[in-house]
């Protein structure tokens, strides 16, 4: 099963630009508290093309983040399928799913989620600990991590701890970390939700640059500044896919 998520397979699957890299089919997620069952997603089927810049929009509490967690393999669906680059997530065991997250998906969260006791460069290196794609020795890891910091314009902050960085800078480190293992997909949950307008602009610039390199970028957002740039808008409402707008 591991081989199905290795680089070789992903290269085989790659090819047609218009092919969907992320597919969901009738995705349902329920949470049970005592005897009460709450539906977070009520059968979402969608396809996100390879190399696209997409946003998932919709009101708070209507299932956007849940959808992103399921697409990213951070949670398991109650029923339905998620297929990432030809790999059905439901068929993977925990180790295989972890390997998929490490190699194919980069996450960026609203609250940055950096490890507070590590420096910027070490946060990026930590992501390389768990992927077979990453350089094995620490010198190569350091070179690559510094390269990624340069990409987001923070090479001079390599040895700063998160609490020594502004919100925008932390989010840029978080973006650099998400690229540590050269994933094909970047999943972002409100990446600008906790930033001032100047930082928001900086982060958005980074995202567009990264998309320009061919990555598939999926952003959950309320922010119209972000969603206005999207090629495809998926609107989630009441746990269902309400509309898909292509531009």
């Amino acid at each position, binding site marked *: 099963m591991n081989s199905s998520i290795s680089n070789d397979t992903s290269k085989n699957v790659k090819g047609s630009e218009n092919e969907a890299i992320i597919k969901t089919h009738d995705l349902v997620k329920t949470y049970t508290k005592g005897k009460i069952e709450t539906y977070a997603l009520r059968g979402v089927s969608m396809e996100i093309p390879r190399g696209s810049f997409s946003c998932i929009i919709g009101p708070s509490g209507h299932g956007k983040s849940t959808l992103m967690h399921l697409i990213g393999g*951070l949670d398991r669906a109650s029923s339905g399928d998620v297929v990432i680059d030809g790999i059905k997530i439901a068929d993977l065991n*925990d180790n295989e799913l972890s390997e998929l997250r490490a190699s194919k998906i980069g996450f960026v969260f609203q609250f940055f989620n950096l*490890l507070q006791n*590590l420096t910027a460069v070490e946060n990026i290196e930590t992501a390389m600990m768990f992927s077979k794609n990453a350089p094995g020795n620490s010198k190569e890891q350091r070179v690559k991590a510094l390269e990624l910091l340069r990409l987001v314009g923070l090479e001079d902050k390599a040895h700063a701890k998160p609490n020594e960085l502004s919100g925008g800078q932390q989010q840029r480190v978080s973006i650099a970390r998400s690229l540590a293992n050269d994933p094909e997909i970047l999943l972002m949950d409100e990446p600008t939700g906790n930033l001032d307008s100047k930082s928001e602009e900086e982060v958005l610039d980074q995202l567009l640059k990264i998309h320009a390199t061919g990555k598939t970028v999926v952003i959950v957002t309320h922010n119209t500044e972000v969603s206005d740039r999207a090629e495809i808008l998926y609107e989630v409402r009441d746990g269902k896919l309400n509309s898909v707008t292509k531009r």
Partner: protein
Amino acid sequence: MNTFKLVVRNITRRKGRFIFTLLGIAIGMAAFVALLALGGGMRAEIRNQAHAMGSNLIVTPTDWCTFDQISIFTGEPLPASLSISVLDEIRSIDGILAAPYLTQASAIDMTPVAVIGVEVGTMQEFSNWEMADGQYFSTDTDRSVVLGSDIADQFDLGVGQEVTIRGEGFPVIGVLEPVGNLDDLGVYLPIPVVQEAFEVDDNISYIGVQVENVEEIESYTAAILDRVNVAVSSDEQLLESVLAILGSVEVTLQAVAAISLIAASFGIINTMMTAIYERRREIGILRSIGSKRIDIFKIFMLESAIYGLLGGVLGSIIGALVSLFAAPTIMAGFDQIMKGASLEANIEPMTIVIAIGLSVAIAVVAGLYPAWKASNLTPVEAISYE
């Protein structure tokens, strides 16, 4: 970046907690090391005392219990129920040197002391006594005392002064050179004088026997038992009896140490469980960037093991220091049990190795449950934790 580096960063992040958790383990381990070292010290000292006594065999009445027998080592007063007539029978065996003892209790300045009746003619040769001051007894009827060196020092007594025993004043005629065992704490008089003062007829407490050929100690024992109705123990047997009692004391000490260790291990569990709740989000971050359950498990287990290793090393150092510095204080109490003994901590390298190994093992076991809990958090429940 690697797991070890990540774990070291985690441990040292909260210095206060790190230090207190470490101290919890270290104090448990220190108690363990100190108690073992002191127990080992007592054991070594009892061996010294037994060998310094100078007897290969001890002849006692048949009705003595083990407690009476080991009281020979501890300088307590002993029953006077052995007739002195058995002495001649024992001396008729070739290759034997026998010395009778009559141990009774008196007090100097309200402090209990052992008054020991000795046979004037044989005692100097039997115990290799040298005089530090004054002179030894000249006859079995001398109504005077010779003091062990420690007794003379303790009560500031010297030749020409007087010791009162059972209401009668006895002049001090000599003080012995230090011998390094129980003999230093005796007040010595000729046996007939002690028998008269304590009204024990012709009886003595026990007879110490030195044999010419130690290899044949069993045939000497058989020869004695053949001639007279007594109990005969070798010094090794008596030593074993004392060590057996000490063994139970050691077990008690080790039980106390074990309780300290159990308390320390709950300290680790508590620290690690708290760490899981505090670092739930961090676990979520690690899971989201691709760490497997086993990676999280390893991180928490390694953290526990490092606590155990550092706690073991620090505890061994503290334990060794405590046992070295505490030995003289504890000695004050030990001295009451075993007169003339000098207690020194006996720290075996193996004790340190065992202590550190045990500390790591306990920490690893204590870390299992928290590590399992941490590794079983799903990425989304960990990452969503506020």
